[in-house]
């Protein structure tokens, strides 16, 4: 430090370590003005918005928010974020109302014929599906073998009409199949697994298939009671169709040998199924959103008439 500033400005007067001093420059005037303006603004804020506690209440400010509640009543409140949210929701609902009214009013079979409505449903449906359904059914609706139903194929546990899909979403579903490991012995389970495999054309031992057939339709195992004599399942109880190559619980396509395929089926029969829980959405989504989703899911590829 060869060049030292001459001592023209004031210092704070503090001296440390013999010669360390601190300048006391005045604040720049633009800064000071800014500061006073913010102080002034705070006064205005106090008057407009809720601000100061007073006893058991607070000053509410003179700004108000007017909104309409779900009973249709027009209400007014001092400004606060909750009332403001009501107002924002009112405005958004108003903007979307023409579309949602149309979704509500149009019967399912007419919706597909209206291109504008269909494109609204596809974009709104995708957003609702991503937030709520995709974590289980995956982003395209393809599901997950061993956990969550595939919504893109035409194999439906509970039915693929618009109405049935709507019911699945609103009320939720819970597939139940009892465990058979205590009721049946190892050989019987094995025979049944071979029989079930044969239903969808998988390789199976002919003698075991015959024994399994008898069990399936007999009263000891009584599989036919839920899966129907045909093995095609009953949609009223969500019992799977065992005659097609589409599997939800037994990961048959994922196995690389015939024995492992049979084993996957055997495990399902032995342990039963209770994990198939589809939450009910009627408490979380409103009826228009559910109807919209039914159309969206129906349109993922597998919807039936």
């Amino acid at each position, binding site marked *: 430090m060869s060049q030292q500033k001459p001592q023209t400005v004031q210092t704070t007067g*503090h001296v440390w370590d013999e010669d360390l001093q601190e300048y006391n420059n005045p604040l720049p005037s633009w800064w000071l003005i800014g500061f006073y303006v913010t102080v002034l603004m705070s006064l205005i804020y106090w008057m407009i918005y809720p601000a100061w506690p007073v006893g058991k209440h607070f000053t509410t400010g003179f700004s108000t928010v007017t909104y309409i509640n779900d009973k249709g009543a027009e209400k007014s409140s001092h400004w606060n974020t909750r009332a403001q*949210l009501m107002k924002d929701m009112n405005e958004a609902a108003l903007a979307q109302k023409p579309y949602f009214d149309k979704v509500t009013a149009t019967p399912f079979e007419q919706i597909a014929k209206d291109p504008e409505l269909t494109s609204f449903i596809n974009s709104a449906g995708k957003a609702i599906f991503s937030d709520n359904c995709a974590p289980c059914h*995956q982003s395209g609706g393809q599901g997950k073998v061993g956990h969550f139903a595939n919504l893109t194929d035409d194999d439906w546990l509970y039915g693929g009409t618009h109405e049935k899909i709507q019911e699945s979403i609103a009320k939720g579903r819970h597939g139940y199949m009892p465990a058979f490991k205590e009721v049946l012995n190892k050989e019987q389970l094995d025979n049944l697994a071979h029989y079930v495999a044969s239903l969808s054309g998988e390789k199976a031992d002919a003698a075991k298939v015959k024994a399994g057939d008898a069990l399936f339709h007999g009263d000891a195992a009584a599989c036919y009671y839920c899966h129907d004599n045909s093995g095609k399942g009953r949609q009223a109880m969500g019992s799977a169709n065992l005659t097609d190559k589409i599997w939800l619980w037994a990961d048959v396509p994922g196995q690389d040998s015939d024995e492992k395929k049979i084993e996957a089926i055997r495990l399902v029969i032995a342990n039963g199924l209770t994990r198939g829980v589809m939450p009910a959405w009627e408490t979380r989504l409103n009826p228009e959103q559910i109807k919209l989703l039914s159309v969206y899911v129906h349109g993922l590829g597998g919807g039936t008439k």
Partner: protein
Amino acid sequence: MFNFKHEWIEKNVGLMLIATMIAISIGGLVEIAPLFFIKETVEKVDGVRPYTPLESRGRDIYVREGCYLCHSQMIRPFRDEALRYGHYSLAAESKYDHPFQWGSKRTGPDLARVGNKYSNDWHVQHLIDPKSMVPPSVMPRYPWLQTTALDYSDIAERLKALRQVGVPYSLTQGEYDRNVKDFGADVAATLHIPDAQKNLIAQAQSGNFDGDRSNVSEMDALVAYLQVLGTMVDFSKYDNDEFVKFR
């Protein structure tokens, strides 16, 4: 007379510390203290109850694993949050939380209303390996929760500590009767500290949260906790602007 000098504070660390604390406390007191007196702070609403022993242990695990570092539990009254998560959080809903888990970081979604949104099976798979359920997820894996037995030997002590700070768990017959009056007999039974272990095991058995009835795992507790989040208040009983009047 009295001649105040900056130098006193600046050259005395102890004094500086005390003065700083006083300055900060004033700021804190002015902002926080009035909330204890303003009568609208905690909304009047039915259904909010303390956690059952199992849920409470689940909450301990939530805190232990640092879930709050990525997840908030505070739905703000904004339109985008209402659309994605549901009704905004009420102060009343976390009145028995010590400490509350509002959080301020959202790497993952808000969890204030995640209860009943997914199945137990989904939570278990998701906690063991999030990517298996949500392929692009950056949430870490927590596979040990499923294989670690839950330590509930000290559950009574934990509930007693919460009782000390004002959560209405009951120790005496009188407190139990008060809970029956406030929460109904079913809930009151789960809040009775002498039965805590019995209740914890019973809930894990009947709920079967982790899909394995043979033991009580940490997964049982955490999933039981996640499944109750945001489900205590039945909002269908109230007009959608009911809680505006508390602000």
